[in-house]
């Protein structure tokens, strides 16, 4: 019998066939029509199963809170039509009456109470965070919910605009059931979730027929996936890659100013940065515009203060600028008590830009005759090292992901704030808390009932920390989204968790 083919030929043929078959399977091209895939930096299926049925409350808009955070970082009605402080510690929220859950049930006050209690049961620390007792949420009637706070808390409505407090249906089945414009179609643990528009949504059906959130942790892989066309939108593109993506004909880049400020926290209680002249000298040495242009690839805004200009009570425009003026900085160093000590600069290894920024700062300090060394620690150790006061200078980034921003100024500059508390309780010092007068201003701002009054108090805090050199402001951060050039309709929001996807379209 004649031999049809040799063993080698058979093997080669099989191999070629297999490669061809696999290549055929490489069907990761961009979604067709109105289906969109968004690459996220965090696993959208990682959350606590008993609270959100395993899906993230961020990004997806499956759940909606009572209160919205506007693009001006202020509160606005969402599931609640309005709210009022009945007395100093009691808030009542009236619910919209045209809201239905994805399972067709109407939104009621009981459902809201149940939803809050579900979060409280799973996380016993949450009531303390929002200033209510664990049984402090009750239904007054079908459409009114009452919150009892443990102390007067004017910023309470903003606190519950956090996406943690998205309202869920009391039915604790496997399927996440909210009131948002999207409902869950498929969950792939550790990989992705696929959503479809909720046809019964009160403001009309969202445009995307399918919206998939896919976890791609590595920033370079997110960029490559975008270039390949496997995703339509990619979150947190490395700033260094933004120009190339913007220049390519198939891709585009959008940036949004965030509530996060990058700054150097200057240790007021550790020698030699306990010397105000030296702190001012360091400030005069720094060129914020150059940091934004050269390190951040032009993405970001040079900062004057510690609070991003997107936050309503930021007084960025009213704050003085220091320079840069290195001659003046040298004079101040000479006039200070600095005696050639080495300043320690602490950075978090998670933030790759911080390494370059720290090196740049160190170079400028060298120019004015101040030596410094950089110490990098891993993210989990960073906070402990920082709050222990081990460094003279620490690169930090602070922002808010809800309309409640008061906590920022308290955490940073109040003696009992989370950054200063450890040292303050140990020896009455802290890190970058200027002292009792600033503490008092922060407390007054926290209790202020109008934005104008709050702004007055917090403006004074910002001026004082800048004047005393307790911080070296660097930049206000911008988030970077990469997208396919034909994808439009990303509704930018300062908080990237809150970006709205309902208007996504594919242009012809």
């Amino acid at each position, binding site marked *: 019998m004649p031999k049809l083919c040799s063993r080698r030929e058979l093997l080669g043929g099989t191999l070629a066939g297999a490669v061809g078959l696999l290549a055929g*399977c490489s069907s990761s091209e961009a979604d067709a029509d109105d289906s969109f895939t968004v690459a996220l930096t965090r696993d959208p299926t990682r959350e606590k199963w008993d609270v959100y049925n395993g899906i993230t409350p961020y990004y997806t808009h499956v759940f909606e809170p009572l209160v919205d955070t506007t693009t001006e970082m202020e509160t606005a009605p969402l599931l609640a039509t309005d709210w009022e402080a009945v007395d100093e510690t009691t808030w009542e929220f009236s619910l919209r009456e045209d809201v239905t859950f994805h399972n067709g049930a109407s939104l009621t006050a009981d459902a809201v109470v149940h939803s809050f209690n579900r979060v409280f049961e799973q996380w*016993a620390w949450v009531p303390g965070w929002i200033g209510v007792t664990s049984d402090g949420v009750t239904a007054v009637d079908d459409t009114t919910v009452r919150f009892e706070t443990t102390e007067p808390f004017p910023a309470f409505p903003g606190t519950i605009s956090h996406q943690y407090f998205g309202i869920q249906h009391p039915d604790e089945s496997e399927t996440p059931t909210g009131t948002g414009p999207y409902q869950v179609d498929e969950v792939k643990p550790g990989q992705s979730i696929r959503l479809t528009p909720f046809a019964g949504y009160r403001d009309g059906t969202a445009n995307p027929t399918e919206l998939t959130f896919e976890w791609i942790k590595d920033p370079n892989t997110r960029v490559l996936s975008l270039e390949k066309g496997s995703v339509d939108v990619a979150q947190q593109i490395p700033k260094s890659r933004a120009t190339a993506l913007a220049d390519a004909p198939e891709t585009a880049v959008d940036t949004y100013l965030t509530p996060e400020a990058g700054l150097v926290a200057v240790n007021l209680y550790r020698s030699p940065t306990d010397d105000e002249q030296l702190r001012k000298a360091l400030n005069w040495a720094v060129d914020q515009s150059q940091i934004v242009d050269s390190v951040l690839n032009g993405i970001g805004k040079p900062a004057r203060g510690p609070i991003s200009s997107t936050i309503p009570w930021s007084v960025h425009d009213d704050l003085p600028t220091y320079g840069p003026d290195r001659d003046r900085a040298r004079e101040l160093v000479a006039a200070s008590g600095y005696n050639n000590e080495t300043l320690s600069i602490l950075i978090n290894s998670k933030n790759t830009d911080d390494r370059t920024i720290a090196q740049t700062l160190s170079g400028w300090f060298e120019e004015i005759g101040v030596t410094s060394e950089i110490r990098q620690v891993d993210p989990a150790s960073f906070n402990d090292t920082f709050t222990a006061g081990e460094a003279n200078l620490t690169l930090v980034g602070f922002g808010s992901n809800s309309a409640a921003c008061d906590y920022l100024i308290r955490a940073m500059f109040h003696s009992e704030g989370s950054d200063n508390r450890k040292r303050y309780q140990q020896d009455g010092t802290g890190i970058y808390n200027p002292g009792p007068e600033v503490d008092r201003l922060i407390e007054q701002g926290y209790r202020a009932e109008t934005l104008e009054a709050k702004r007055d108090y917090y403006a004074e805090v910002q001026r004082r920390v800048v004047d005393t050199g307790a911080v070296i402001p660097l930049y206000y951060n911008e988030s970077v989204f990469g997208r396919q050039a034909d994808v439009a309709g990303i509704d930018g929001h300062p908080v990237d968790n809150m970006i709205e996807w309902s208007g996504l379209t594919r242009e012809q």
Partner: protein
Amino acid sequence: MNGQELCKRLLTMAIVLLGVSLLTYGLIFITPGDPARTILTQQMGGQIPSQEAVEQFRAENGLDDPFLVQYAHWMGDVLQGDLGHSYYNDRSVSEMIIQRLPNTIALAVASIFVALVIAIPAGIASARNPGSQADYAAQIGSLIGVSMPNFWLGYLLIIVCSLRLNLFPVAGAAGLEHLILPSLTLGSGMAAVIARLVRTAMLDVLDDAYIQAARAKGLRERIIIYKHALRNALVPVVTIIGLQLSYVLNGAVVIEVVFQRPGLGTLLVDAIFARDYPVVQGVTLLIGVIFVLMNFAVDLTYSRLDPRIDLGGDPT
């Protein structure tokens, strides 16, 4: 291997695993970093948790207990078959491992397959003609394979095979097509090491008298190489393959990140950075078990390959 020897091996394994778990728990415990603050910050989407929240979290999860108390609690649960729950989302560690394990196993098996397919023919070709062009090519290839960082090769393969040639997807873990580039990346590094070892072992064996005798007997070269020489050369190679498992598990972290394959490597690394102790302990214990079993399997394979090797049976 008799029953007594088996018992001795099992006891040794148990002691090794106990030591591994104690060491891991101790190391992560003394490493700076507060699990409460780290996990709460992640849960709150980057927002800073209040001190009260941190303290409450610590109390809820027994993080204020002394080291030995925490370890004893964990070990007590493990002995009852419970690896604990993640601090982050309260999911069972066993479930998290089961969810990720198939991806890791698939990657490990495919990588070792790729490594063997490349390394054994290259090593043999190199050994059969030492000093030839094929030998130099194999040795240079091995050197490049050993020197090339995994992540770099991974990105290179994505750019060439996915972006330019459009053959494979960039990332994901959905099907076989998602396994090709990761296993090529991981397997090529292993192949470099194994190929060099196969070459050396084959060179030793090919000089042996029984090979000369087989040739004198007129056996075909293919039979001499593959049936007689290779089998004897495989003993050190099998040892290295067993040890290379550590390379697979360590290298898998990078590969899993670059190719977005959710596996045990990234589960462990993310848990270390979050100070999610139960997950770190659970995954470490599993990796320890895999290592110990793998070494045991390697020992058993020795006596299969070379019956002269005795694993401690009857000394007579």
